[in-house]
């Protein structure tokens, strides 16, 4: 079984008795096994372990699943505060099907979107549908997916590639891991539809080596799809053939950048290349290449089956669809939560997350990984979407939300991220390589109580230079944690400075 995302309550156990609702048990231990077996043998479920019941479920691409009725005293799924504000589109099957069994994926409507695309739609129809959905890149940059596909499609080349970027490198973010581990076939299906639209015959899944289970499940999924004729020659009898290869990343944050990722697949050190030419013109092995993040691909089957118009109604203005966020750090209910884009931070942190651990006050959230910023509690009405998070000095990134309570030093947090990006800088361009090193030195000096006001000015100046002059996204966003903490938590820097004057 995959994971439904309520990590705080793990381990979870699902029980389905014929004609009865699906029951999710929580915080189960080995000691509970006997009680569970006894209850099930008697046609019952252990009440004190029951988290919630699911009577029916809409997997969006297929027919509604009807589990059954009964066990009315167990709370319904929609009554659980952690689940209530959520909307599952990406994680539509996660925790409900066996990710290692293609038949279960097919049973919930899997590969029917591929069938529809290959038999009833032209490649242009597919691209138009994706454009109409308003789907934007879930890796963080938010570029419209349909538009991106169109660029690679219009290139005249006999060989084109598509790549799934599964090098989830943001510390504090693990939604892509769950998407791969819980429902690998939806990624394959999304890629197959994309390949058909773009005109690519080969695809590469670039996964970080730190995710062995994800790799194993995708390998299994690829094998099963091949056995069923869903990968290979003339899929569904159409004039469309496609093969998929897994390439493993080896632990370099910068490889999330698409040109660095391509260099890595080609067996080089993952250093970004200047754009243009964009991968759409000259990508893997010099051929037109389209790269999308794992989560972007997972939305495609839903868009094809339910229509772009349906999809565009979810979320906010110019921010259609949902996003899976990893809610972690000093928050009561940790886990993976999927909400419509433009949901306020407050809903995420308080309604879903239930605030701080043991009721502690929350000071800020850090979104978007090392390239993101820290957002103070006073701005928790900010909608979580591409534009609004950027406006407050952070970014959406891949969807990491790290909650920090009053005990967290924001200067130390800024130093943590600059330490990270300084180490992960590939060293190719000077502003990033040298600039971050100096920022780190100043932050260390600040934490040691030895910095002056002039140092703060230098820190801000350096941030501007690194942002404007770096070659790739890593450098262009690396100063964000410093700039946002200087903007919202300047007093914490000042307290450290005062010591220097004494």
């Amino acid at each position, binding site marked *: 079984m995959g994971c439904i995302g309520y*990590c705080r309550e*793990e381990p979870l156990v699902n029980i389905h008795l014929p004609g009865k609702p699906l029951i999710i048990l929580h915080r189960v231990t080995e000691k509970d096994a006997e009680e569970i077996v006894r209850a099930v043998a008697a046609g019952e479920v252990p009440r004190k372990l029951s988290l919630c019941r699911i009577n029916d479920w809409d997997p969006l691409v297929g027919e509604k699943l009807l589990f059954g009725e009964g066990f009315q005293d167990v709370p319904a799924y929609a009554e659980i505060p952690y689940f209530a504000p959520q909307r599952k589109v990406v994680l539509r099957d996660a925790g409900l099907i066996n990710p290692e069994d293609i038949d279960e994926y097919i049973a919930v409507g899997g590969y029917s979107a591929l069938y529809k695309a290959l038999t009833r739609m032209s490649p242009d129809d597919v691209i138009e549908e994706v454009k109409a959905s308003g789907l934007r890149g879930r890796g963080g940059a938010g570029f419209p997916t349909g538009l991106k596909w169109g660029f690679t499609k219009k290139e005249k080349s006999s060989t084109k590639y598509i790549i799934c970027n599964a090098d*989830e*490198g*943001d*510390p*504090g*973010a*693990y939604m892509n*891991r769950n998407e791969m581990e819980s429902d690998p076939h939806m990624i394959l299906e999304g890629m197959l539809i994309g390949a058909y639209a773009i005109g690519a015959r*080969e695809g*590469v899944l*670039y996964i970080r*080596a*730190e*995710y*062995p289970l994800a790799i194993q499940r995708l390998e299994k999924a690829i094998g099963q799809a091949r056995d069923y004729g869903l990968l290979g020659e003339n899929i569904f009898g159409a004039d469309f053939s496609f093969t998929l*290869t*897994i*390439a*493993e*990343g*080896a*632990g*370099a*944050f910068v490889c999330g950048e698409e040109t660095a990722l391509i260099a*890595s*697949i*080609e*067996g*080089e*050190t*993952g250093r970004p290349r200047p754009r243009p030419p964009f991968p759409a013109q000259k990508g*893997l*092995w010099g051929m037109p290449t389209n790269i999308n993040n794992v989560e972007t691909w997972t939305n495609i089957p839903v868009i094809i089956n339910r229509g772009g118009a349906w999809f565009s109604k979810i979320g906010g203005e110019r921010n259609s669809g949902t996003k899976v966020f*990893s809610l*972690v*750090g*000093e928050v009561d209910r*940790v*886990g*993976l939560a999927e909400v419509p884009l433009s949901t306020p931070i407050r809903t995420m942190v308080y309604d879903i997350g239930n605030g701080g651990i043991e009721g502690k006050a929350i000071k800020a959230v850090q979104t978007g*990984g*090392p390239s993101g910023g820290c957002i103070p509690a006073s701005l928790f009405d900010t909608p979580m979407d591409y534009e609004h998070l950027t406006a407050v000095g952070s970014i959406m990134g891949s969807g*990491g939300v*790290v909650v*920090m309570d009053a005990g*967290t030093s924001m200067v130390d*947090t800024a130093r*943590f*991220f600059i*330490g*990270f990006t*300084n*180490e*992960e800088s*590939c060293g190719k361009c000077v502003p990033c390589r040298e600039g971050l*090193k100096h920022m*780190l030195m100043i932050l*260390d000096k600040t934490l040691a109580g030895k910095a002056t006001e002039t140092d703060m000015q230098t820190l801000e100046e350096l941030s501007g230079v690194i942002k404007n002059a770096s070659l790739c996204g890593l450098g262009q966003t690396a100063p964000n944690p410093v700039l946002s903490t200087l903007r919202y938590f300047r007093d914490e820097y000042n307290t450290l400075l005062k010591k220097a004057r004494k």
Partner: protein
Amino acid sequence: METARLNEIVESYPTPTGKILGILEQVQREDGYLQKDVLKTLAEKLEVPLSELYSIATFYSFFTLEKLGRHVVTVCMGTACHVRGAPALADTLKALLKVEEDETTQDGKFQLTTADNDFTVTSARCFGACSMAPVLRVDNKIFGYMTPERIPAVLKQFGWEEDTHQNA
């Protein structure tokens, strides 16, 4: 690594896509590190300069050129773990296993092996197990919700013995 096994690994990559990194990763997994001789053999087989393999081996954090201890203890240094106390875990491990950093690294990354070669303590960027932060990994086993106090019990599962002579 035996040459026959190395040949097998190389032959398991029929296309150049993901080949070089894939081969090095498999060698790293099986040998625990990248031996100089193996890299030399590979350079000839793949017809790439040894310097290029060296630059790959040192660029990506997955690879190591030094032999690791029998058990590898990895402290996750991701954001969620950092916020929930990973630095204290690292300090406790270093103290218990009596390994010292010979030089202070700016980035907080480290790789230290005990004198008896039983344990290597190292850091990782993020396991993606953020919900259980802070997290330790010993070999392939993940230990979540860690505290410095719980570390001795974890290490004992892997044959570590508390040094009682010190207090005697």
